[in-house]
């Protein structure tokens, strides 16, 4: 892709966050007025454990240029160990995505409720990384 096209490309990113850590961190980023790019839409889950890898697949097949997931740091889950299970599922789906070179479009983070700054910075770096990847080949495809 030419540089020019890259310039104009605004990635569409969808993210799943757990209610207790990362969603709270996003709120904290808000109360701290941390600006970050407007490319991500957040879907609130109660726990990382609710992340069904099908969501990731669906998002990517629907043309999301990036998908991310973020929850409490392992060991700090509000639901005691939800994120330990989530981590395994995420690892599995990443491995599958890797086969098709899609793993770069799926990011996972651990951001705790107190890490508002980290959330905002993550949104920045995520947007840049996805912008660098260019559009999802599935974008615009009718599926």
């Amino acid at each position: 892709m030419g540089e020019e096209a890259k310039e104009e490309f605004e990635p569409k990113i969808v993210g799943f966050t757990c209610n207790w850590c990362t969603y709270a961190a996003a709120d904290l980023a808000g109360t701290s007025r941390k600006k970050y790019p407007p490319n991500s839409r957040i879907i609130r889950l109660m726990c990382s454990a609710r992340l069904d890898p099908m969501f990731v697949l669906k998002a990517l097949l629907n043309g999301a240029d990036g998908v991310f997931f973020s929850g409490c740091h392992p060991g700090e889950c509000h639901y005691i160990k939800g994120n330990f299970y989530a981590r395994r599922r995420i690892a599995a789906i990443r491995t599958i995505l890797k086969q098709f070179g899609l793993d770069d479009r799926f990011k996972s983070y651990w951001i705790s409720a107190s890490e508002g700054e980290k959330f905002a910075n993550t949104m920045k770096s995520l947007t840049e990384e996805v912008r660098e990847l260019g559009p999802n080949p599935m974008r615009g495809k009718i599926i």
Partner: protein
Amino acid sequence: MKGAELKHGDLEGLLKGLLEKGVVDCLILPHRTGKSVSYMLVKDADKIESSASALFAPSFSVNAANLVKGWTIKEKVGIVAKSCEIRAAVELIKLKQLDNESVLLITTDCSGAYTNQVYTEHYAEIGDLVDSAKIKELEGKGITIRESCSICENRLADVGDIIIARGAGDDLVVAGLTEKGEGALTALELSLEDKDLERAAEKEKIAAEAKAKLASLPELNSLDALEEFLQDCIVCKNCRDMCPVCYCKECFFDQPLGDPIGGDLLNLAELRGAIGLPTGQLFYHLTRVYHVSTTCVGCGACEDACPKDIPLTRFYPVITQKVQEIFKYEPGKDVDEPLPFTAYEEEELEECLR
């Protein structure tokens, strides 16, 4: 492990003994139907005859585990099958689709199998028994084993309760891998002695060949490639139905759970200009490969089942193996090992996350 040396001719007696001594209440084992081989459920020991030719027949019809999926009755069933089938059975035990207490898993050595179609077509050349030399020889004639078998590293029996290993010529070794297996053999009044059936060198050789073969297969390394690969797919879901470890009673894809309703479809179409109507091939196969990612034994039943002859072996086992690698999990190996998705370690997998 403890085992006993036998001859091919002893197998019939051995299996009959299992029924007669009450070790199992019934048996599922391959039997010959003309040139072909399929499975039968035996209650009457007299129905077992000259098993050796069927037992080691290099043919794959269905995965035996698929036949016992949902076997939750208390009567004990012995299952005699190839490694990939027994492995699938073990996974089903973990998934509670089979009760460990009511099965006796007997694994036979496999040298690789031909599809039912190839086998019947070339029965004359292939015969009842093959070995690796024979397979090579036939390959020269364009008669090849199933692709899933050619990339299988687990052809030698090494899982289940009892293994039946082929030696040179007519020699066999039968050995118990588990307490249950050894108990069964003891009940058959076989004099058991310590046996070393590791067969490391042989295993390594098979693995090397399998790896080489795998490497030679075209790789599906992009979404475009996958799209092209699946272009003939009609989402008939036969692959799923024949998969031994796809165990749902009603598949997600047979339910309206994910489908938009009402004005939503139009809202979406309006937003995007056009939308495909669910459910797409990609979503179906990618979801399915995730669903079986830790349990897939690589038996190739999916490929056999595909009416469009899509070489699904290049998709399912190839990908699932990679997932299994990150969990250091070998499906079907040990009935007590937890499924990867039901376990965790507090610190792990950081390299698989980003």
